């Protein structure tokens, strides 16, 4: 998110003019975001730190958190490679259908997560042709952990691409050409010259997709079901605990997820500020 750089034309001449507007904006954010978050955090920590730890260390909660982080890490590792390659191909190469593909990249953002889940079940589910073939080979995708990773890969597909693409477009190619002139192969040039400039944007895309994966529910619940200690990710655990009346357990795991997402958000913000400072922005 762009940090507020401040408007050069400061509106000091009419200070009272926007008070209604400001009150409206503050009321909106206060009621919609700050109040629910505060009340939730308060309720999560109210029974005391010991109860908090016990709820985190509950074997089911711990497994759900671990599964969420492991699947998110695998997804990010794949996305960093494929996303960077896709951005590279879209920016640097000419091929028929490039404009169309470029427009379709955002499709996973537009498709409802439940529909994503239904798509994956239709393709890999036990009653599908592919699912039956994979099942015979001993590969279970749906209602198992590979399905979770596939769902996460689908919903986070655009993040790395869309964060690397603009940087790659603006990149000065003189350095690459110089490296090539000095005899560096194309892979060496990419690794030593291009990649360092892309690193912040790759990291941003990775952080955004990781944060999204920590909270993903709709697609994952459709493909994974909610088998405890097998496919129950943290958001599914939270939902299950709310339904079964263990609200504190749900709140504690939520607080852990929320804290991780906020840390990522703050980290990405700092990264961007650093980048802007370096570019003299």
């Amino acid at each position: 998110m762009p940090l507020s750089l401040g408007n050069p034309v400061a509106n000091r001449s009419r200070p009272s003019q926007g008070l209604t507007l400001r009150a409206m904006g503050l009321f909106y954010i206060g009621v919609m975001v700050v109040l629910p978050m505060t009340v939730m955090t308060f309720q999560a920590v109210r029974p005391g730190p010991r109860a908090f730890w016990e709820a985190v260390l509950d074997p089911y909660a711990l497994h759900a958190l671990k599964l969420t982080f492991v699947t998110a890490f695998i997804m990010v590792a794949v996305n960093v490679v494929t996303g960077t390659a896709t951005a590279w191909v879209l920016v640097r190469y000419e091929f028929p259908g490039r404009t169309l593909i470029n427009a379709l990249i955002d499709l996973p953002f537009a498709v409802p997560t439940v529909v994503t889940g239904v798509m994956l079940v239709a393709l890999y589910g036990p009653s599908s042709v592919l699912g039956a073939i994979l099942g015979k080979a001993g590969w279970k995708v749906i209602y198992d952990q590979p399905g979770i990773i596939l769902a996460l890969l689908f919903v986070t597909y655009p993040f790395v691409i869309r964060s690397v693409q603009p940087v790659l477009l603006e990149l000065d190619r003189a350095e690459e050409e110089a490296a090539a002139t000095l005899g560096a192969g194309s892979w060496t040039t990419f690794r030593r010259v291009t990649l360092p400039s892309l690193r912040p944007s790759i990291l941003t895309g990775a952080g955004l997709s990781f944060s999204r994966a920590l909270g993903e529910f709709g697609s994952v619940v459709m493909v994974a079901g909610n088998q405890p200690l097998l496919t129950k990710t943290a958001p599914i655990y939270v939902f299950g605990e709310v339904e079964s009346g263990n609200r504190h357990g749900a709140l504690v795991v939520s607080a852990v997820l929320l804290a991780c997402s906020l840390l990522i958000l703050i980290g990405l913000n700092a990264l961007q500020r650093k980048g802007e400072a370096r570019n003299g922005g």
Partner: protein
Amino acid sequence: MAADSDWTNPPAAGPPSAGEAETIGSAWGRRLLIGAVLSWFAILILVPGAALARQALGGGLAAMFAALNQPEVYRAFILSLWITAAATILNTIFGVALALVLVRQRFWGRALLDGVVDMPFAISPIIAGLMLVVLYGPDSALGGWLEDRGIQVVYAAPGMVLATMFVTLPFVTRELVPVLRELGEEYEQAAHTLGAGRWRTFWSVTLPSIRWGVAYGVTLTIARGLGEFGAVLVVSGNIIGRTQTATLYIADGVESFHPEGAYAASMVLAAVSFCLLVGMDLIRRRLDRGKGGQS
């Protein structure tokens, strides 16, 4: 500024010259990379989409429409539309106001406000729903107080609207902040100098200049609102015929003995999201053209 660059439709970089073609990878390496990237896209995104289309349309169009022509499907879609409409209208009004505050005003805590706007994107929809249940649920102080006055929020439409508003909250503001910043204040000040009131200035100067930005934010809000599942699931109670939206119907239906309706409804939502994506692409083009024309 990099953030403002045209990332949805990068201008054609032009085919690399002959000299570059030799330095940056051989022709075969290039073909291999393009092939790999396109295959990955197809396997990950297009093939599952095609599998859904096959499931939904396997029995022919008539069968699909028959599956859709059920009262509960109809009610679920109507409810989704109403909730999305209400959330979009409220988020647009407040989102425009918030964007104006963030860009045009200086006050203590503004940077913090700017950061808080993005929080809904970092929060799982399930947690968003849980927050609303904790805050407005029947056993909370606020929920009890509202219930005494005959207002039910959770397990009813108001809660579902609030949940949809929460998950789509940043869209309008985030789209408008760069547009407003680019626009500057000169026109507004000119209108003001010419004697136009604040409302008049907003309606006839500011709003026409930011309309494509608003349209883009609204389209994103609608797309996300129609597809919202987790947050709505937690606050709705999923009461069939009363609080069941299209996505909740799909989730229930796929695991039932008659999944045809769920597949058909998924197909409809996928088609709608595809149309919204095309709409976004067109609006993005208008936005960029406007930007080019002004500077």
